[in-house]
């Protein structure tokens, strides 16, 4: 059973992602910011990181860069947006800094799961969510 680390400062986003992923038989651990995320990453075995970019204390881009340096093979999905006018621009920056995939908020369950399926090809994802 793959383990996914969700790093996002918004409780609601973490809750929704947890529900999506647990229904796909994945274990989910949560962090409220980059610092906590890095701490959990060092203490656990994680297969995929889903990381928000705009967070207090430790932003997502810096966090992605640190993960990429210490765990080059880690799969990372960057998520951002939420009504901020220039958030999408930052997703491009995240991609340049090491995110495997990026996803702008708001996104649908299927969009997220399709991206997760690309990152974890050995794990079975419900058919409706597989990339076409």
């Amino acid at each position, binding site marked *: 059973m793959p383990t996914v680390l969700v790093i996002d400062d918004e409780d609601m986003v973490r809750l929704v992602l947890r529900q999506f992923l647990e229904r796909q038989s994945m274990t989910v651990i949560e962090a409220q910011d980059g610092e906590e995320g890095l701490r959990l990453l060092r203490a656990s075995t994680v297969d995929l990181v889903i990381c928000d970019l*705009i967070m*207090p*204390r*430790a*932003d997502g881009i*810096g966090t992605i*860069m640190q993960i990429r340096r210490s765990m080059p093979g880690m799969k990372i999905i960057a998520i951002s947006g939420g009504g*901020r006018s*220039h958030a999408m621009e930052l997703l491009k920056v995240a991609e340049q*800094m090491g995110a495997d995939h990026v996803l702008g908020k708001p996104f649908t369950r299927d969009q997220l799961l399709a991206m997760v399926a690309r990152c974890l090809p050995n794990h079975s994802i419900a058919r409706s969510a597989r990339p076409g």
Partner: protein
Amino acid sequence: MLGLSLGEKLRNWFVEEEPAATSPSARGVVTHDADIERMRDLERRLKALLSQPQLLSAGRIHMLNFDSLRASLGSSWDELRDRVHSSADRIISRQIGDKDVQFRSGDGEYIIVFATLSRAAASLVCAKIAEELYRLFLGDPKLADITVSTAVGAVDGKLMFEHASVADLLSAVEQTVETRGPAERAGGPAAPPASAAIGAEEARRLKLSQLEMAQIGTMYRPLWDVGRQVISTYMCTPVRRFPDGTSVEGMMALSAITEPQQLAKVDIDTLADTVEILDELFRNKFRLMVSVPVCFETLAARRSRQEYLAICQSVPDYLRPFLVFEFLRFPAGVPNGRMSELVNEVRPFCRWTFMRVECRQQSFASLSGTGLTGLTTMIASDRGTEARIMEDMNSFVAAAERASLKTCIVGITSTSLAVAARAAGATLIAGDRIGRAGEIPQHMLRFGWQDLFLREAVR
């Protein structure tokens, strides 16, 4: 005619045997010992003055009422009230003598009791006070609409006032001066007491010691144009250094200066120094923009504005595209017309005009169409408050964009704040995370996100 509340207050001052409960120091106001002593001293001085029967006949008690200013400011009055009162306090304190007494008797209403000046001289001082205050907030006020009231008698314990417009009082003085001979005007004897009182302001202006002035310097802080990924502008910011080695910058550095003339001096020196530096850099093939701070007080008062604009006019044409003005200490709620007037005074000499505002101010609709290019704001956050600051930045930028204004956020101390500021849509950002302030502006620098993050990784 005198309002009842004012009449009651003044009557209380007149009656020596009035119960102590009516005195300011005994009204249940919790004050510091020094404040209590100051109020008692004020009370003693007022009673001493008002116990002299010749005061009324001499016309030494005057009332200034700023109702017309309040009417002109309209809905902005509530926001500007404190600023008007503090400006009025400052102007009155500067214009009156040590033995004169002034106190605020209501919302926008002041009583001044002159110890020695004649009625004409005292009226003139009041007229000058009103003129300066109105010019500060309205630019070019209708002096005929402003009245100075002089107490001329007491009936049943209430003071009776006569009123004169500021325009009439000032024109009477001009006529008096014109009818005097040139030799007398050039330095002859018998200068009127009012002129003496006004002339005395020169000696009172220099309250800040030379040592203190020397502690206020300037630094240049790099501004990152996030969209263009370049540091192309350096923000000149006042810095006040303390003997223990600490310092504060920006508006905090200017907070110790209370006299508009001192602020104007700092502004003029800063502009002159910055233009000289800019010129030198330009001659050495450096191409960069510099933002120069200028205070509301400097631009609002005619005399200092003229001095400031004289420096602006001497800025060579080739440097003007590299100059940005940042307006400091502008009160929220300055009328749109007044704002346009002040912006347009400096626009011919610069590329952009920005105004420093509070981050939490939620509407800038009144600034739309004034010619202002954008807004700067200073955020002060620690790690614990970053989440709230991020929300504030979102609201600030959204409000500025609704008024078609660019935004510059100063105080970016972490990468997460830089990311959030850009996500919010800020045009320019500055702070220690972007670059520390230096003694002189540096060159233009291409500076991408990767540079920002890699620099953090190296730390």
